[in-house]
């Protein structure tokens, strides 16, 4: 089946923003942001697409690490970054439209942080 490229590339925290800027320069568009819970850490996936190819940058951060926002590069990311912050408790720094944990205004704090 002709699927187009679909890759996952791990990046280090210090290379992360340059990698995103690089994607932007080459004309990739933002597809999605996703956080996944690992024991004591978060696995963040940032997917970009160009034509039919899809590439995902994979960043693993500690619970207390502050992750830089990519809204300065891709302004459309603000909704998904707020969602990551509210549902998982990922510390995202400097979102252009920061809802400060009030995007969905749910009763339970960071429900995805604990399993089950």
């Amino acid at each position, binding site marked *: 089946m002709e699927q187009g490229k679909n890759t996952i590339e791990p990046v280090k925290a210090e290379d992360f923003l340059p990698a995103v800027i690089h994607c932007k320069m080459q004309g990739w568009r933002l597809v999605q942001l996703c956080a996944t819970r690992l024991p004591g850490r978060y696995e963040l996936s940032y997917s970009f697409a160009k034509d039919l190819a899809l590439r995902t940058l994979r960043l693993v951060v500690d619970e207390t690490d502050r992750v830089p926002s990519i809204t300065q590069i891709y302004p459309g990311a603000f909704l998904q970054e707020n969602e990551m912050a509210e549902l998982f408790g990922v510390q995202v720094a400097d979102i252009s439209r920061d809802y400060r944990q009030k995007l*969905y*205004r*749910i*009763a*339970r704090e960071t*429900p995805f942080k604990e399993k089950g």
Partner: protein
Amino acid sequence: MAKLAKSPWLLHYDGSSCNGCDIEVLACTTPVYDIERFGIINTGDPFQADILLITGGINHQSEAVVKQIYSQMPDPKVVVAVGICACTGGVFKDCYNIKGGVDTVIPVDVYVPGCAARPQAIIDGVVKALEILQQKREAFLARRA
């Protein structure tokens, strides 16, 4: 039936449903099902509505909205919970953000189960609501007399 039960105005609000029942409620107002043959008009204004159709369970944010809409409607009023989520919470009952059915927030008069509730069932529920509306109206007038 008296005048009110012959030309009730209907208000629809989406609690936190999946859209399925909402489009079925809208489908009821269009040809093929045509709820307007009972004299019903779909309005967008709570101040003029007699019947409130709510679809979907209630989450922590829509709670205040539903309460407000209910309080804005003039007495007598009837609430119809459309779809199994509005009745009990349905498949979403276990979700962290769902409080449960509509009756956890406001009193419900008619329950229409189904996922998604079929237009026939919704119309049936609304017609039941008309009877209840009439009873409530008589009680309302008796209280005032």
